[in-house]
């Protein structure tokens, strides 16, 4: 495959045409924070955590393909500030009270907050009144913790092929839904595989009967599955 030369954090790098900036950064061992991205799933550029500076413009690195001569900066004060503000907005939009959450200490959102040095949330919390659906025999979806990353939607469609999840409504009214918005327990196509549980980065989709210490997720299972299928 044709290789392209780009400059990333001052270093000249050759990478195959068609790669995303995020892929190149990962190959180079340069960390970029991500939330909606998961190796093995398609990218939607939804969470905006992975922003980088390309020739003075801010773009999402998971959805931007490299181009010859591109100058990429993955971290500076401006990017750090934008990422932190974005993160605060994500926290404030739903009811993220870590000490009360089953995913406390095993949460990608919480980890990001620590990594990015988010000390507190300065924007006011919206405190929406949201529901929790425990109708599925094995799993729970708690909308209070959902960050609308859409990983559940993609894993269910792209890897499991069940197409149960979707996102309905818009703006602050947006919610993940199962099928036409029925209770999850009534979703006819759900195979109970649990893939959505493993990829959900927060405590939004969790397994029933698990204590906080046990609620450890394994999103990398999906990456492995995808790689194996490609190698078959």
């Amino acid at each position: 495959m044709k290789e392209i030369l780009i400059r990333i954090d001052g270093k000249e790098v050759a990478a195959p045409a068609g790669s995303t900036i995020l892929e190149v950064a990962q190959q180079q061992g340069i960390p970029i924070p991500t939330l909606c991205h998961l190796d093995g799933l398609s990218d939607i550029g939804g969470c905006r955590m992975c922003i980088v500076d390309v020739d003075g413009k801010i773009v999402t690195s998971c959805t931007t393909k490299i181009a010859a001569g591109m100058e990429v900066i993955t971290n500076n004060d401006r990017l750090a500030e934008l990422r932190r503000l974005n993160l605060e907005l994500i926290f404030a939009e739903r009811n993220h009270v870590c000490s009360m959450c089953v995913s406390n200490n095993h949460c990608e959102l919480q980890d990001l907050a620590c990594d990015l040095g988010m000390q507190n949330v300065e924007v006011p919390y919206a405190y929406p009144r949201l529901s929790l659906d425990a109708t599925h025999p094995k799993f729970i979806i708690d909308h209070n913790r959902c960050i609308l990353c859409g990983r559940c939607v993609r894993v269910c469609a792209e890897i499991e092929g069940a197409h149960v999840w979707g996102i309905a409504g818009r703006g602050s009214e947006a919610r993940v839904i199962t099928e036409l918005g029925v209770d999850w327990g009534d979703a006819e196509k759900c195979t109970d595989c649990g893939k959505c549980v493993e990829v959900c980065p927060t405590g939004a989709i969790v397994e029933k009967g698990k204590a906080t210490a046990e609620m450890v997720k394994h999103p990398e299972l999906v990456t492995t599955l995808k790689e194996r299928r490609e190698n078959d």
Partner: protein
Amino acid sequence: MLNEEVHVNEVLKKYPSATREDLLDILHDIQESDPHHYLSDAALSDVAAHLGMDLADIKGTASFYSMFSFSPRGKHVIRICDSPPCQLLGATTILQKLIDVLGIAVGETTSDGLFTLETASCLGVCGVAPAMMIDQETYGNLTPTRIAEIIEQIRREDEAS
């Protein structure tokens, strides 16, 4: 709900080789021809089957648009503009008049099933603000007196028919 199936099937017949790109047209057609101007779960399921789409995908797409309703509405749907130009020219007074005349709040349907009251963003006729639409018809330069007259006239026409 036999009736409903019939009107959905009639619409789908008009789109024999439809793809997902036809989704919005189809949904508009179905909502339009439904006596209660809404998209029932049964209708959405039929469309999903027809287009080979997933249920969550259909609901997700349709629910993005405020023009679609998922619960039954009245025979006539009133959509009053609540964007700034209409606001400046008294849309709040007009809305209050509608609420008084109809005896319902925004989002509700009159007990005779004749009217549903909704608000909408700019209807694109700011030149004649304040404005509203009843079904497909636009009404501009509204005053409280005209509101009473318009509603009264539709009521009369309906009784006559």
